[in-house]
């Protein structure tokens, strides 16, 4: 009887997992089968999150990867790409932790998701609009995913990479300084030799070129040095350097043609995509010139692509126009710690790729010895067969573009650095398909790992966050 008198909103009435989703009123149902389990899990999650590392077999999925992720209702992981947990009004901050960005593509967005996305956006906006930005807080928010719109991701990434200083009033100065520096670098290093010769000519004889064009008759010859002509073989010659770089430029062009062929932003022959490719070409060429030890390595275009995409889809016009300069600086910063992976001479050293791969192995061993043993000894699937690409290219080749952006939010938002989180995510990737790996032999496992199946990204990232760090090495997380 009391029920009718008290006006309690339906949503607050269910603190316990309600398995029968159909009894829950007041939720929008996107599609019948999923909405039920969503609702159940919204509340169920709250009770089950606080667990140490004893996940056991709950972590993995067996589902078909047709985009619809169903999980067992008991799982603590979120499933079904479900609605954000903002349903309980403003009073439950933990629910925000479970927010997921709207699933890519076709699924219609429910009211709850919209509410959740709004809250997330306002969180990020609030943080960024502070005078002195609290980077740690921003990192924490980023690890849970950033909103796609409003250019918030662009600004957050710039802050997390250290391109923008935490003090807001220094932004203008930093940005303009950096952009100017980039323009100058471009001018110095990427100029075509004819352009260079023309400017030199203008410096020396601005008058002559004008006078000569009016008078008929024999043309004046100007003597030039041995370095200034196109066939010069001298080392200091602008022309010679230009021709030496054409090989690198050609490879960059080839790779750029193949970057994300399904996205109109990068591929196709429209003027816009050509401009984007040219901008990326300049960035990569400049990087190759400034780092003669590594030059350009195939795959760097893939690492650049998300950065450049995020920065040039910034609604702020000035930012979008200067996306090239900003992307260059952030690209350099991002590659800063992983640049050693690209250098072949350092392969066997303590900073090279092999050492990183062995750290991945150790991490897997610490977290799931059974799987580690199965991979290392029984099937002999060594990390360099599958994880090389995962690590050097920061997982850009394994997932869809939207997923990459979400994963990179977490990578950049990790207070211990990108590499640390990267190893965790790789380990989580292995753990999430554990049962399939355990039942496979060398060939099946290799095939599976090299074509990683679709899984729920939020779940993957949550597993990664909850891993036990590897305490055997010096990288102890304190």
């Amino acid at each position, binding site marked *: 009887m009391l029920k009718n008198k008290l006006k309690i909103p339906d949503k607050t009435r269910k603190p316990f997992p309600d398995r029968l989703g159909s009894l829950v009123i007041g939720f929008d149902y996107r599609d019948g089968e999923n909405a039920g389990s969503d609702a159940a899990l919204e509340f169920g999650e709250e009770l089950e999150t606080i667990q140490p590392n004893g996940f056991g077999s709950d972590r993995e999925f067996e589902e078909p990867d047709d985009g619809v992720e169903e999980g067992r209702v008991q799982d603590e992981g979120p499933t079904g790409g479900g609605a954000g947990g903002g349903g309980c009004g403003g009073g439950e901050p933990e629910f925000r932790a479970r927010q997921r960005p709207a699933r890519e593509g076709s699924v219609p967005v429910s009211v709850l998701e919209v509410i959740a996305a709004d809250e997330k956006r306002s969180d990020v906006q609030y943080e960024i609009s502070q005078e002195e930005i609290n980077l740690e807080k921003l990192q924490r928010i980023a690890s849970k995913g950033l909103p796609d719109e409003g250019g918030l991701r662009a600004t957050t990434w710039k802050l997390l990479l250290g391109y923008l200083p935490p003090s807001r009033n220094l932004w203008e100065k930093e940005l303009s300084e950096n952009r100017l520096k980039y323009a100058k670098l471009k001018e110095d290093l990427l100029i075509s030799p*004819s352009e260079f010769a023309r400017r030199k000519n203008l410096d020396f004889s601005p008058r002559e070129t004008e006078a*000569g064009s009016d008078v008929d*008759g024999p043309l004046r010859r100007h003597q030039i040095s*041995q370095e200034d002509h*196109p066939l010069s073989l001298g080392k200091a010659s602008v022309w010679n350097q230009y021709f030496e770089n054409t090989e690198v430029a050609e490879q960059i062009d080839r790779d750029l043609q193949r970057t994300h062929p399904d996205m109109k932003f990068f591929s196709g022959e429209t003027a816009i995509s050509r401009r984007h490719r040219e901008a990326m070409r300049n960035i990569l060429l400049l990087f190759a010139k400034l780092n003669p030890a590594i030059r350009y390595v195939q795959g760097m275009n893939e690492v650049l692509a998300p950065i450049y995409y995020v920065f040039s889809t910034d609604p702020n016009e000035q930012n979008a126009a200067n996306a090239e300069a900003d992307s260059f600086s952030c690209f350099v910063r991002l590659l800063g710690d992983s640049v050693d992976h690209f250098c072949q001479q350092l392969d066997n050293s303590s900073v090279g790729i092999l050492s990183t791969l062995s750290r991945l192995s150790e991490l897997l061993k610490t977290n799931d010895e059974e799987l580690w043993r199965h991979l290392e000894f029984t099937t002999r699937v060594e990390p360099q067969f599958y994880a090389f690409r995962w690590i050097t290219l920061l997982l850009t080749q394994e997932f869809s573009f939207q997923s990459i952006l979400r994963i990179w939010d977490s990578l950049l938002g990790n207070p211990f650095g990108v590499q640390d989180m990267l190893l965790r995510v790789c380990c989580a990737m292995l753990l999430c398909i554990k049962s399939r790996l355990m039942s496979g032999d060398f060939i099946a496992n290799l095939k599976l790992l090299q074509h990683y199946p679709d899984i729920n990204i939020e779940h993957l990232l949550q597993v990664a966050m909850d891993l036990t760090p590897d305490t055997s090495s010096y990288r102890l997380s304190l």
Partner: protein
Amino acid sequence: MVLVLALGDLHVPHRAPDLPAKFKSMLVPGKIQHIICTGNLCIKVVNPCRIEQLLSLRCECLAEEVHDYLKTLCPDLHITRGEYDEETRYPETKTLTIGQFKLGLCHGHQVIPWGDLDSLAMLQRQLDVDILVTGHTHQFTAYKHEGGVVINPGSATGAYSSITYDVNPSFVLMDIDGLRVVVYVYELIDGEVKVDKIDFKKTTTTTAH
């Protein structure tokens, strides 16, 4: 930034054995986009008597090889026929458009008096080109005439001509960049390669046709 090599009057093997070594060391593949050749490149060796003559001259560069050598530098090769060329398939004149410039090519022995500017200008108007490249005199010249340029790259091997024996090997490399062309003149004087440069800017004239 298009690089166009202009050369001609090689007269291999009759008057010269080959291109000078210093020129050959500079001409490497991959840099040049087009080659235009005024003519008198070479003669096909069909006559067995000629072979004896060749062997006695001890020339390393046989007839067809010049054409093939130029092809290795750049696949886009344009040649017009000189009076000693036995390859009948070369045309008398040729026009091509590179960037914003129209180039005309002709050997020059057809234009009488040889090397006369006004007569060449007539040919230029006839072909309706901005840059006319002719040879036959074996002397490098570059004239500006009525909004166009007439260039003679000279003889790349330094072969003697009907006019004079004193010939310095020379050739021309043009850098076409938008409305501007920079002409680099390579001459072998006293065993050393000297490079000069000439700037030319095309005035955008509205063509009435």
